[in-house]
């Protein structure tokens, strides 16, 4: 057990009798051994790292088929809030959706039809029907999710992962993004207004 170290450390030792060729070979073998050890450690570390990233996920859906435009009336519709965490909003020009996540710290705001405002219960952020910030600590406007038409049956498909988030402008009313910046494909679908609708009921939707 101690023979390996004894050679160089005991007094009166005659020294290592190895030839230069022997020493070169030893050096090579030591290097080869450490390289092999390093490679196997690196391989193990890589495998351990890869193990921690599951290739299949069982997470809630992020894509929703929400039916034809005609089933949604003018204004904010909350029917998908619980299942998909988004609102569907129809105005006189078409239809879009907004993600029900407050831009302050991620709570879910509530829609108050009488005030025509989204109000967040956590820290009091206030948004209007376009998602512009009308008050509170929210630093940006509400996200809009991707909305497309199914080419086969014409139903709407909402993808809540692909989101529109343009930089807002500070105005006296709050943080603002112009509607024409947000009403773009694939985050908006042009559609004629429902029969009998007029701008008199809610100017915001015109």
């Amino acid at each position: 057990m101690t023979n390996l170290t004894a050679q160089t450390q005991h007094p009166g030792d005659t020294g290592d009798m190895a030839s230069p060729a022997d020493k070169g070979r030893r050096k090579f073998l030591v290097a080869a051994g450490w390289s092999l050890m390093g490679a196997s450690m690196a391989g193990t570390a890589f495998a351990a790292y890869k193990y921690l990233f599951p290739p299949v996920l069982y997470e809630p859906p992020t894509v929703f088929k929400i039916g034809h435009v005609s089933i949604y009336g003018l204004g904010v519709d909350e029917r998908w809030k619980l299942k998909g965490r988004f609102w569907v909003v129809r105005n006189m020009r078409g239809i879009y959706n907004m993600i029900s996540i407050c831009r302050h710290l991620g709570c879910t705001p509530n829609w108050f039809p009488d005030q025509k405002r989204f109000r967040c219960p956590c820290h009091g952020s206030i948004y209007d029907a376009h998602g512009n910030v009308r008050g509170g600590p929210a630093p940006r406007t509400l996200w809009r999710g991707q909305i497309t038409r199914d080419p086969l049956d014409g139903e709407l498909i909402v993808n809540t992962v692909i989101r529109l988030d343009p930089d807002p402008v500070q105005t006296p009313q709050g943080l603002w993004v112009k509607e024409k910046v947000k009403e773009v494909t694939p985050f908006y679908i042009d559609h004629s207004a429902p029969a009998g609708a007029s701008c008199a009921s809610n100017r915001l939707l015109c």
Partner: protein
Amino acid sequence: MLQKIKNEIVESQIFKSVFRHGYPDNDLDRAYAIFSSVFLHIHPVKVRRSALRMRYTFCLGGITLFLFIILAVTGIWLMFYYTPYTGLAYRNIKDLQFVIFGGNLMRDLHRFAAHGMVLFVWLHMTRVFLTGAYKAPREFNWVVGVVLLVNTLVLSWTGYLLPWDQLAYWAVTVGAKMASYTPLIGQNGPWGPQLGFLPTNDIMFMLLGGTVVGQNALIRFYVLHCVVLPLVVTVFLAVHFWRIRKDGFSGPL
């Protein structure tokens, strides 16, 4: 350059506070290095050359410990993906086998090491019996060894339920049924019914947390398998090793 890096590490404050004795090149320093380490203190300060002879013990206990360490490590890796819920357990195992990178390797290592541990505990005890090492003054360490044997078997049995397949379900159904035949405290055992033990209050009910193998049994076995029994085994292992290496009866092994 390597020499420079090595010096940089060896001379650093952190290294010196962990390895406080330098390279042990004399007997006193070697003894200090063992004494002052929380990991090595269970190791004897000196080892006889004869004790290192392979054919004396065949290192069967050492192999068992090695397998136990493999089981602990692979078990922790498996716990990252396993859910002790009847609706998910089997799917988690299938994911480990077919989807997750290295999952099947971890599962197989755990399974074969478990079989190996039972086998080597058996061989170890056979060797101890044949060399008469169970006799006084070491008889109590044999008792500790028997406790470790039983814990190994119960660990195997509780782990067997976790994949939640047909094999697991019926093996544990049969095993739990056997518990119900325990004298005095089992619903089917001698004097069990007379003492008032029914399917809802006997030892089998306590084991399964119910009258059949269900969700309660799964979580109970999971907790036993992953927390309680490994802790018990670790404590008894420490006692087992201490009695061999520090008690003096076995000589400085």
